[in-house]
């Protein structure tokens, strides 16, 4: 074993010396790997970033929650079928709530997209959720100021509101939003609470911080076509292991509430965050593979470049190889020397590419979420070494099997 380590050390010594001597060529060779590893590493940081952003984004949905809705989040069922379903009504919610035993919290929700104003500031496209005070128990909300609306405020449909962090920041900047009045759909709502910042901006238009919560009664009171729209029902299970039981109970009860016959299909859907994750994994999974494949191609190009240059290097050093063999270098010594040279070039290139990727990811972070993780670093190093060994193999082999007599004659 120690003889092998000795040989490795000596191989490294010879390789490093040889590289130091051919600096320009070594640098050019490295360029291919730098670009290849940089792309792969950058791709990995973006993928990690998207994963983390997604998890943060949907964590605000709650993993123990069920969302009973007319629509299914995933179109396994035909769109027109869902479109023709009866709307869910507040009465459906009330009947379900009266009968359900398993959930710890049930709340109705009605969504709108509206503009919110305060004095001269306004924010467009905020998600307005009309709901009851029970909604709080289906979330993991943390408040930076104030509180959610109370049972009384909820029941009496008071004009109160809870703001998401981005809405509050945008309208009030550094001022205290509490007890101020914001204008929504022509009506003034008193701010009773402001939420902590929750998630990132990843899930497209769904920004959990650009929201406002108001009692559902005020939606029906003040919003024009509220009664023509379908509500959704948020249900919180006692814990994760109870989710499927809660879902079964909900399905049974909703069928009853909606007056379905035993042979009729559900005219509602029960959605879960887990389904979102599965859907995400499938969709994004394909994109990830495609992305890595493409950057992998860049790496392949780099590797081919290295193989090419190593071949040239071997040819140029034919005389040197002959000399080494005459002095007593064995085939495997020559093989080892050139593979080690190739591996070192790729390792150095890989490290440079990695550093470059980390720097670039800071710039890319403005457009896409990125996350540099230790796993990526290890991966980059592994890939560099493997690329080095594999691309160096053929050239090293051709060097090793050179006939010393011929090699010494080479001009």
């Amino acid at each position: 074993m120690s003889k092998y380590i000795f040989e490795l050390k000596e191989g490294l010594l010879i390789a490093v010396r040889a590289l130091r001597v051919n600096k320009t060529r070594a640098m050019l060779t490295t360029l291919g790997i730098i670009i290849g590893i940089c792309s792969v590493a950058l791709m990995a940081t973006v993928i990690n970033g998207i994963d983390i952003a997604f998890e943060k984004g949907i964590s605000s949905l709650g993993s123990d929650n069920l969302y009973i809705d007319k629509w299914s989040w995933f179109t396994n069922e035909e769109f027109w079928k869902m479109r023709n379903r009866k709307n869910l009504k507040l009465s459906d919610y009330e009947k379900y709530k009266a009968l359900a035993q398993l959930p710890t919290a049930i709340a109705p929700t009605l969504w709108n997209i509206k503009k919110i104003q305060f004095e001269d500031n306004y924010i467009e496209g905020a998600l307005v959720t009309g709901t009851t005070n029970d909604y709080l128990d289906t979330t993991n909300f943390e408040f930076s100021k104030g509180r959610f609306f109370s049972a009384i405020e909820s029941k009496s449909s008071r004009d109160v509101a809870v703001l998401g962090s981005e809405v509050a920041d945008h309208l009030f900047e550094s001022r205290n939003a509490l007890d101020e009045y914001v204008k929504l759909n022509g009506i003034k709502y008193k701010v009773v609470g402001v939420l902590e910042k929750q998630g990132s901006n990843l899930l497209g238009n769904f920004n959990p911080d650009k929201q406002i919560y108001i009692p559902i009664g005020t939606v029906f009171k003040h919003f024009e076509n509220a009664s023509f729209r379908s509500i959704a029902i948020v249900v919180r299970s006692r814990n994760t292991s109870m989710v499927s039981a809660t879902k079964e109970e909900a399905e049974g009860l909703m069928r009853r509430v909606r007056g379905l016959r035993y042979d009729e299909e559900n005219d509602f859907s029960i959605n879960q965050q887990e389904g979102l994750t599965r859907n995400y994994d499938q969709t994004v999974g394909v994109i990830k593979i495609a992305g890595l494949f493409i950057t992998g191609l860049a790496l392949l190009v780099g590797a081919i470049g290295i193989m090419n240059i190593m071949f040239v290097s071997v040819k140029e050093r034919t005389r040197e190889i002959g000399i080494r063999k005459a002095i007593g270098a064995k085939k495997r010594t020559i093989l080892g020397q050139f593979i080690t040279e190739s591996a070192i070039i790729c390792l150095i290139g890989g490290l440079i590419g990695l550093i470059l990727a980390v720097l670039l990811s800071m710039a890319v972070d403005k457009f896409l979420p990125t996350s540099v993780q230790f796993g990526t670093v290890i991966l980059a190093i592994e890939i560099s070494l493997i690329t080095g060994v594999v691309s160096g193999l053929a050239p090293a082999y051709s060097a090793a099997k050179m006939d010393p007599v011929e090699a010494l004659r080479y001009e």
Partner: protein
Amino acid sequence: MNIINIENISRIFQVGSEEVRALDNVSLRIDKNEYVAIMGPSGSGKSTLMNILGCLDTPTSGRYDFKEIDVSDMSDNELAEIRNREIGFVFQTFNLLPRSNAFHNVELPLIYSGIASAKRKEMARETLIDVGLEDRMLHKPSELSGGQRQRVAIARALVTHPSIILADEPTGNLDSKTGEDIMSLFNDIHKKGNTIILVTHEEYIAKRAARIVRLRDGRIEKDEIISN
């Protein structure tokens, strides 16, 4: 003690569709501490003979006993080991690694021998001092004169304390004065107990040896001891 014993060695090369007999049934004995010159015109087979004696090439037929061990059938790796430990080459064109300095060049065979760092540095240093290059050790070949380069090559050949020194036209690329210096050096090396085999086509160089083996057309024409 017998170092080299070749019997009926032939070496045939395939050149296209033709066969070239570079060596034809050559037999030769060389003992320890001999100083032998192998002479012949161009095409006589002396380079081929040198390559076979130096275990760089294997004969097509015949037997080669090196220190009484049959090497004619040895594998490439085994031959490489023999070259490393037993044979020291000196070439006409020096054949130093151009971008390593003198010290590293002399160290290289010891690295391939697997000798530890401290010991081999000491050995390299000593050998370079022996050939008179004490203050040129860190120079690269391009920074050395022809004579100095050949001394580095000789030091590299000597550093492993080989059984034979094989020199192929060692003064071929040197002027007559420097050539003379190198031949004196070989003299000293011989006096110290080394076995030297010199390949040359120059009569006056061959006469510096104690024995001349003359080749013609792949065969030994004459093998004479000469008085020095």
